[in-house]
């Protein structure tokens, strides 16, 4: 059973790391601010989500697991809000690059 859980952790964390890598490549390669924001928020949402999901079987139930989920939710909240604000500023034509 623990082997299955460990496998799950490794696969999910690796998948999360892949999204972070893809997000970073997008941040460096995409042409404009909005596209770069798009790449970045994917890393936050999916990448961190997968890493947290992968770590859940390793965390102590219930407190540590809830803390992990809370961290992911806060990162989602902050990422979504800051992404909105930056996109709005970029559309107003101020320099954000």
């Amino acid at each position, binding site marked *: 059973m623990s082997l299955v859980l460990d496998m799950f952790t490794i696969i999910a964390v690796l998948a999360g790391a892949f999204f972070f890598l893809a997000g970073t490549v997008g941040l460096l390669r995409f042409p404009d601010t909005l596209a770069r924001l798009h790449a970045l928020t994917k890393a936050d949402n999916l990448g961190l989500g997968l890493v947290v999901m992968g770590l859940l079987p390793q965390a102590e139930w219930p407190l540590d697991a809830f803390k992990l989920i809370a961290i992911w939710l806060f990162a989602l*909240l*902050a990422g979504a*809000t800051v992404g909105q*604000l930056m996109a*709005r500023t970029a559309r107003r034509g101020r320099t954000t690059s």
Partner: protein
Amino acid sequence: MTLALAVDISLALLVLAVAGWIIAVRDTFAAVVGFVAYGLLLGLIWVRLAAPDVALTEAAIGGGLTGALLIGAAARVRKTETAARAEYPGTLIRTLAAILAVTVAAVLALGILALPDPAPTLAPAVAASLATTEVGNPVTAVLLAFRAMDTLLEAIVVLLALIGVWSLTPDRVWGGYPGPRRPVDPDGVLAWLARLLAPIGIIVGLYIFWIGADLPGGKFQGATILAAMWLLVIGAGLADTPPVSRIWLRILLVTGPLVFIAIGFAGAITAGAVLAYPEGYAKPLIVAIEIALMPTLVLTLALLVAGAPQRLPPQ
């Protein structure tokens, strides 16, 4: 090579690379962004060194608060930056500065490498005397019992820094509101975030403050989170900074250090030394000092970021 060692080495290399980049980069704003990342990476290194208290403080104060201060400063100097670049020091001065910096770093490195093994430490003494303070977290015991003088001076230093910021106020607006008036957009995404996040953030800040007695945490880290929540609400335009002429504000600003000093001098009578605690009363007195310092720190840290008064005082 173990995986942990690989992580440590890459963290160290990353911190060095970011530090080099901060020095090399031309744009002030980019350097500030680098500094914030540097603070967070340093926090990770403190975690790896099993010092979560230092890591929390580094992330909150070193990365967060100092980062916010520097972003404000970078925004202020942006207009005059190109003019200032014309007065850039010549190659000779820069080379001398580089030599000086490298020498200081080398001396520090030599000092650390020359430490005897095991390095001199007071940790066993702290562990042996921890029970007398009735505090569970040895870091808190050091900060508020064994080295309380340092913490007292720290609390006074941040207050002095705030007075320094306030002293830059133009005469016309003295006593007025710090910072610009934020545009209010009650349906905006920032106002929404402030409404949603502030209550949670306040609970997290108070939790980190309270847990500091027994586990990593404490007033500085908690106060930074509370100050950040207040600044978020102010930044969203849902509240305004208090005018610096308010009496309640000034009383709260000096309460923390005054309570600390009062309890410290009371120790001279009741326990035989300044900043000593009478037997059996250590924990309640430490908690009293922490609670008194908390509002002072929240206000000081937030008002430091808010800056000097810019708008006329209320009539």
